């Protein structure tokens, strides 16, 4: 047992890539916020990264089977916390996403990602057959649907969709009959126009803007247009740190949080983009590698859940920056300024290490 806890057995290449991405994030936060009211964001980020590493070690050291055993408790507490958030959370920019506790604001929906990963892994690893039946689909749909619905109410469409991404990846890995897959696609396709009236105005606007950003260049399309200009202005080599005019003169909105990659692309250019996207590629591939070497199905599902979630975040956030995806307001993992997302990502990496530490167990 002690060898599970040995620090030498951690995934060091995973950790190295993670820390390089974090460091580039801190630099970009500094560049995007110096001289503004957010100018202390970069050292706060450093503190959060330190705390995140601690959380990672904590999550890695408790055997993941123990964690899976407590999924019921985690799940129920998370649902209650999400319920409290929706009805009594702190309202910022028109949505209730935070719970204040001890002077800090926590974003429960970030930690719920972890719980969803654990729950899906536990459910799928307990399947007796090597495919997901219609009854399982319905049960999983309800189990994931509840937190998804609560987070949508906040409203935070982007984060709620990450739970669906985790579930989707899990189901596809567990095995699915073609006609079930077709049925899911059909239901999803039909529910989209039905869901349209239930979307908030700003969510509809974001989707419309995604289709045609130039329809309202100074209003709803503003963020995307300015982001694309910033990225394009960077060119091959970039303008250099602290010298991107779109970023520094604030034409680029929320340049240290959701649009941090746009600021990075302006100041570091296509070369910087290739380097950082390469880092993320290595990160996700390394997590997938841990899934391949996992000692059991539950470990595999845990790693793949984390990989699917990070890939979804990357696709939606980075895609938004270049206008290939609608604006959903989900952060870029490890780079965007903000504690909750960093903590949840580090805890997920803790899960991955947890699985890795126990790969020779059986």
């Amino acid at each position: 047992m002690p060898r599970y806890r040995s620090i030498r057995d951690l995934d060091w290449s995973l950790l190295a890539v993670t820390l390089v991405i974090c460091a580039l994030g801190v630099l970009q936060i500094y560049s995007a916020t110096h001289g503004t009211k957010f100018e202390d964001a970069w050292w706060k980020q450093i503190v959060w990264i330190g705390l995140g590493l601690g959380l990672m070690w904590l999550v890695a050291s408790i055997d993941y089977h123990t964690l899976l055993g407590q999924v019921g408790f985690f799940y129920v507490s998370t649902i209650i916390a999400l319920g409290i958030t929706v009805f009594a959370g702190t309202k910022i920019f028109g949505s209730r996403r935070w719970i204040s506790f001890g002077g800090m604001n926590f974003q429960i929906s970030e930690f719920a990602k972890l719980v969803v990963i654990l729950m899906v892994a536990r459910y799928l690893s307990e399947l007796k057959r090597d495919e997901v039946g219609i009854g399982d689909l319905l049960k999983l749909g309800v189990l994931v649907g509840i937190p998804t619905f609560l987070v949508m109410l906040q409203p935070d469409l982007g984060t709620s969709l990450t739970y669906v991404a985790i579930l989707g990846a899990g189901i596809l890995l567990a095995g699915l009959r073609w006609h079930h897959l077709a049925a899911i696609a059909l239901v999803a396709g039909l529910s989209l126009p039905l869901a349209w009236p239930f979307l908030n105005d700003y969510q509809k606007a974001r989707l419309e803007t995604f289709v045609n950003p130039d329809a309202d260049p100074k209003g709803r399309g503003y963020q995307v247009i300015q982001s694309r200009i910033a990225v394009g202005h960077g060119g091959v080599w970039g303008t250099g740190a602290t010298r991107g005019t779109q970023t520094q003169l604030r034409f680029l909105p929320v340049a240290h949080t959701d649009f941090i990659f746009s600021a990075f692309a302006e100041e570091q250019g296509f070369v910087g983009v290739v380097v950082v996207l390469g880092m993320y590629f290595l990160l996700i591939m390394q997590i997938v590698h841990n899934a391949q070497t996992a000692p059991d199905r539950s470990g595999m599902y845990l790693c793949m859940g984390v990989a699917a979630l990070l890939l979804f975040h990357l696709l939606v956030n980075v895609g938004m920056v270049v206008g290939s995806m609608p604006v959903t307001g989900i952060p870029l993992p490890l780079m965007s300024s903000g504690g909750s997302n960093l903590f949840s990502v580090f805890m997920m990496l803790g899960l991955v290490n947890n699985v890795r530490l126990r790969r020779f167990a059986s």
Partner: protein
Amino acid sequence: MAIEPEHPKEEGSSSSHLGSHSGLTFRDDARFALGRITVFQYAIVAVFLFLLSGFWYLQVYNHETNSELAERNRIKTVPVPAPRGKILDRNGSIIVNNHSSYTVLLSQETLKLEHLAPIAMALNLDLPELEATVAKFAKGPKYVPIPIKTELSAADLAFVESHRDPNTFPELEILEAQKRLYPRDNVAAHVLGYVGQVSEAELNTAEFAKYSQGDMVGKFGLERQYNDLLTGIDGQRRVVVDVSQREREVLESQEAIPGKNLQLTIDMDLQAVADLAMDGRRGAVVALDPRTGEVLAMVSRPAFDPNVFARLRQADWNAVINDPYKPMLNRAIQGTYAPGSTFKPIVAIAGLESGMLSDTETVNCTGVANWYGRPFHCHSTHGATDLHRGIVQSCDVYFYKAGDKIGIDTIAQYAQISGLGEKTGIDLPGEADGLMPSTKWKLRTQRERWYPGETISVSIGQGAVEVTPLQLALSIGGLSIGGKWFQPHLVKLAAAPEPKHMGNWNPLNVASVVNGMYGVVNEGGTGSAAAIAGVTVSGKTGSAQRISNDLAKSNAALAKELADNGWFVGFAPRDNPEIVVAVIVEAGIHGGQNAAPITRDILEAYFEKKTKASLPNPTNLAALLHLKRPTPDQ
């Protein structure tokens, strides 16, 4: 790190290795999904290639376009408005100046219509009017901001400064501009005019084609007449701005060229006296130097305050426009009135010069005379009356006879030489023609022959004849200096002017008429109220009837409203006149009682100032009385 799966084994090869931990059962054949994980890996590669292609498109393929857009974001060209030229009086003191004022603009590019209501409330604007303005500008180009309030108060300024951030009202912009200041309020308002935003109709004319919406242009009076001269050339600055349009850095700056100053012939001291004298009356005053045509003073009442026009609301505008007494009418050049008895000196000179009259001939005035089967009355019974007495007592019967002898066409010929019945050509917009009737005129306009009875009315300045106060001052002024007429003008000329018309009159004939006018004031005539000790004031009174005697008898209210206009036209000194003043007081009935004292005040001020001119520090209380605000000097 392994990207390729080691064992692409499909599911279903099945197995149920069951592991046990913490009382739970887990299936530990983790390798069952390796094939699907491979598919997932390909998906990862696809996602990254998709993302990279987006960056390649923007950063490599479209770099130029996006850089240009980024530059356009941060570099703005800000106009530097050129200050408008000042207006000075003949002595160089400032009559019209500029002062710094703040205007709030709405940027059309960031404007949200739902913000209009809170903005209107905070800035105390009329919402429907604001919406109309916005709708009007929406037809034009998007980059033109909409000025919504000028002359911001400190509170307005504080509101705009604290709410123009991107999250509140990003459309708010502040413009510091030089605004027109008329320190003496309504003094000479009709002469100076006012400025305002160029209107849509004006933009479509050649005169204003070079302006764009929101520009300030002269609308009235000299501001309009000399708009091109007074308008400077705006400069511009290229600056780096941030998203709130705050300036971070100036890249390039091009100075504005101020408009040229305008020096007037108006003497502000005289103007102030004339304005004060006309307070509470309706009518006009014109004072000219007959030797040059320089206008020394010009008043029209009721007047307006040009300072308030820039911030006038539509309702206030309508009140001004619909005022029955037409305060926007410059009566000195646009009001046309029957000259009444002030026309008699012209009839006299026409008779003497044409040889139809001699100054010794007398007419017996019995108070009434019959002409062409109709009785014509005189205001008194003068008995045997010669030309001199005819002018001094303003005997109508004398002039009925004279007019009949001279004939309408000869009268018209002399009246026209002296400048009556046609535009004087003064440098103000909108001057009226007036009317000097003749047989030709009647045939041309009414297709009817001239009846001799009409001449009888015209010879005492009634009937069809109509003049403006300026025309009368010009006419009598030219007569007083021996029959020379100089173009009336308001802006100082560089060189001494040449006369526009010459009468080539016999000086003895001129002297006869001038002596008569001297008698009007100084020999117990109708204009005694204009007399000044030590100054040989000469002049002529007039009362111009506006409705017939019969109608006046039957309708007392109308008779009061349309009571006779009182005229006085005077000049001084008798020999070598320097100044001529024409005054009309609407419904003033007798010129001798109402208009003559005003003429006296002005002449008195003129000669007083002339004698004091040698003193080192001349003070003029009347002018100071009208100086409500200090004139900021820059």
